[in-house]
C-alpha cells in the first residue's frame, strides 16, 4: 500500500516525450539534448549536438532528396488485400486499416519521380512506421514499379530502405517480393541504369537480403542497424552478448558491405555527385 494516493493523472512516461515530430521539443535518445522542432527540421532530423539520426518517413525523405515542387507520386493508394485471410492475435484485415489510420499512409513504401539537383530520378522510400516497414505484396509491387519506371525511361533509381523484413501476414507472397524486386533490378542493371541504395535505421531481414544490398552503390546513414537476422535472434543462437557496434553502418563499412556512410545533410549532394560520375 502506498502512503499517498496520487490525485492527478500519472506523470507521462519518458518515452512519450521523445516522440517526434508531434511535440515542440524532442529529447535526443543518445545525448539527452533537448531540441526544438524547428531546429530539428533545420538539421534534417539529426541531433545538432551528437549527430544522432532520428527515424523519419517518406514524407521527410522526399523533401530532403527531391528539388522543391518536382515530386510526383504514383500508386499512392495501393493497399493490401489480405490474400491469406491471416489471423494471429488480431486479424490482418484489421491491422491494415488500423495502420492506415495511425500513420496516414497506405503501406510501407511510397514512390515517385522528380528532380534531384535538376536531374531526373525515380525515388522509392520506405516507412518504418507502417507495420515495421515490413514488405508484403504492396511494397514489392511498388518497389518493382519504381524500378520499371527507371528501366523504361532510362532514369536512375534510388531506394531508401527502413524495414523489419518481410511481412509475415502475407506468407510466401511476402517472400516472393524479394525475388520479384531483385529480378527487376537485374533487368535495370543489364540496361546500364544506375541504382543507388540508401540504408537507414533499421534495415533487416528480407529487405536487406534483396534490393537494399543490391545497389550499384550502397550508402548508409551513420549508426543505422543493418543486418539479415535480428540481433536478438543472433544472441539466442550463439548464446553470447554481441560486440558493441555490431550490425551498425560502421560495422558494415568495415566488413565491406556498404560503400560509404553519409550524413543525412550530405545525402542529396552525395547521390547527385555519384550519379553525375556514373552517367554521361
Amino acid at each position, binding site marked *: 500500500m502506498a502512503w499517498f494516493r496520487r490525485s492527478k493523472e500519472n506523470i507521462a512516461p519518458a518515452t512519450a516525450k521523445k516522440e517526434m515530430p508531434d511535440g515542440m521539443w524532442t529529447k535526443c535518445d543518445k545525448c539527452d539534448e533537448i531540441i526544438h522542432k524547428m531546429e530539428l527540421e533545420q538539421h534534417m532530423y539529426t541531433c545538432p549536438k551528437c549527430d544522432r539520426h532520428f527515424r523519419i518517413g517518406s514524407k521527410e525523405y522526399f523533401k530532403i532528396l527531391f528539388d522543391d515542387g518536382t515530386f510526383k507520386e504514383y500508386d499512392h493508394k495501393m493497399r493490401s488485400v489480405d*490474400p491469406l485471410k491471416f489471423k494471429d492475435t488480431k486479424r490482418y484485415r484489421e491491422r491494415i486499416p488500423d495502420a492506415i489510420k495511425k500513420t496516414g499512409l497506405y503501406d510501407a513504401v511510397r514512390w515517385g519521380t522528380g528532380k534531384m539537383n535538376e536531374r531526373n530520378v525515380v525515388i522509392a522510400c520506405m516507412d518504418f512506421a507502417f507495420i515495421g516497414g515490413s514488405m508484403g505484396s504492396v511494397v*514489392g509491387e511498388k518497389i518493382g514499379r519504381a524500378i520499371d519506371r527507371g528501366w523504361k525511361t532510362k532514369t536512375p533509381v534510388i531506394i531508401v530502405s527502413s524495414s523489419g523484413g518481410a511481412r509475415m501476414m502475407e506468407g510466401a507472397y511476402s517472400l516472393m517480393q524479394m525475388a520479384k524486386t531483385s529480378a527487376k533490378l*537485374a533487368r535495370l542493371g543489364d540496361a546500364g541504369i544506375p541504382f543507388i541504395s540508401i540504408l537507414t535505421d533499421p534495415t533487416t531481414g528480407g529487405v536487406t*537480403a534483396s534490393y*537494399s544490398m543490391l545497389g550499384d552503390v550502397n550508402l548508409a546513414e551513420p549508426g543505422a542497424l543493418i543486418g539479415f537476422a535480428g540481433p536478438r535472434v543472433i544472441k539466442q543462437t550463439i548464446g553470447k552478448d554481441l560486440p558493441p557496434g555490431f550490425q551498425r553502418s560502421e560495422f558494415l563499412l568495415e*566488413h565491406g558491405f556498404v560503400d560509404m556512410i553519409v550524413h543525412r545533410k550530405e545525402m542529396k549532394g552525395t547521390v547527385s555527385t555519384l550519379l553525375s560520375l556514373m552517367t554521361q
Partner: protein
Amino acid sequence: MAKVTLEFEKPIFELEQKVEEMRKYADNPDIAQEIEKIEKRVNQLQRSIFSGLTRWQKVQLARHPERPYTLDYINLMTTDFLELHGDRTFKDDKAIVAGFAKLDGHRVMMIGHQKGRDTKSNLYRNFGMPNPEGYRKALRLMKLAEKFKKPVITLLDTPGAFPGLEAEERGQAEAIARNLYEMSHLKVPIIVVIIGEGASGGALGIGVGDRILMLEYSWYSVISPESCSSILWRSWDYKEQAAEALQLTAPDLKKQGIIDEIVPEPLGGAQRDHAKAAAILKGQLLAELKHLSKIKIDKLIEKRIEKFSKMGEFSG
C-alpha cells in the same frame, strides 16, 4: 521400415507391426489370408490419414529425419555426380552441396541444401543452414553451368540461413540478395524443387528459376511456424495455428500461383520409399528439361522475370 514414427502415423505402424509378427506363421493359409486382409486395412488407413493431414502434420513430415535429402536424390537420380567444393573466397560450406551430374541424357548442375541424419553429421552440415559462403559457392557453380550451357537444378531443404555473428560479418544478406539477382538472369534453364523445408530467404537464396516444383509433403514460407508463433503470439505454443495461418503447404502454394507443380510422394511420404520418391521426381525433371530446352534463352529470362513480377496480391 522406418524407425521414427510421428504421432499421427502410430495407428498405421501398429497394424504394420502386427503384420510383421504374423509373417512368421505365414505358412498357415488362414494366417496368410488374414495378413492380406490387414494389409488392405493398412493401405486404407494410410490413405485416409494422409488425405486429411493438417498443415502442421505436413510440416512434421517435411522434417522427418528419414526423409531423403539432397545427396540421396542426387545419388538415386543421377550418374557421374562429382561434388565440387568451395566459394573460392572463404571456405567450403557443408550445408550446400553442388556438382555436375548426368540425369539420363542431360548433363546438369545439381545444387542443394544438405542436412545431416544424426548429431555428428548434423553438426558437420550445420543442420542444413548455410553461411554466406554456401550461397557464394552455389553462385560460383551456377556461373560455371552458365559458361558451359548446362541447366541448373536446385533442391531446397533448409530450416533457414544461419543466423550467426560471423554470417552477418561476411554478409549473409548480400550473399542471398546477390543470388536472387544473378539467378534472375542466368543464361541457362533453372528448375527449383522444394524437397523438404523451404524456410524463408535461406531457401529462396537458391530458389529463383523457370519452373518451381514442390514435393507433396514439403513446406515453403516466409518464416517457420515456430518463429512466426514466437513473434506474433509471443509464445512458442502456437506453431500449429501459425502453420495454418501461413498456408505453407504444396497445395496452398499452387493455389497462390507461387509454384508450378506438386510432385507426388509415395503413399505415407518420401521417407518410406526413397527410390520411388526419387523416380517420381526424376520423371518430372526430365519432362521439365525437355520442355525448357526448346525455349530460346532470351525468351526464357524474360519469362522468368515476368513470372516473379506477377507474384503478389494488392488493390489500387
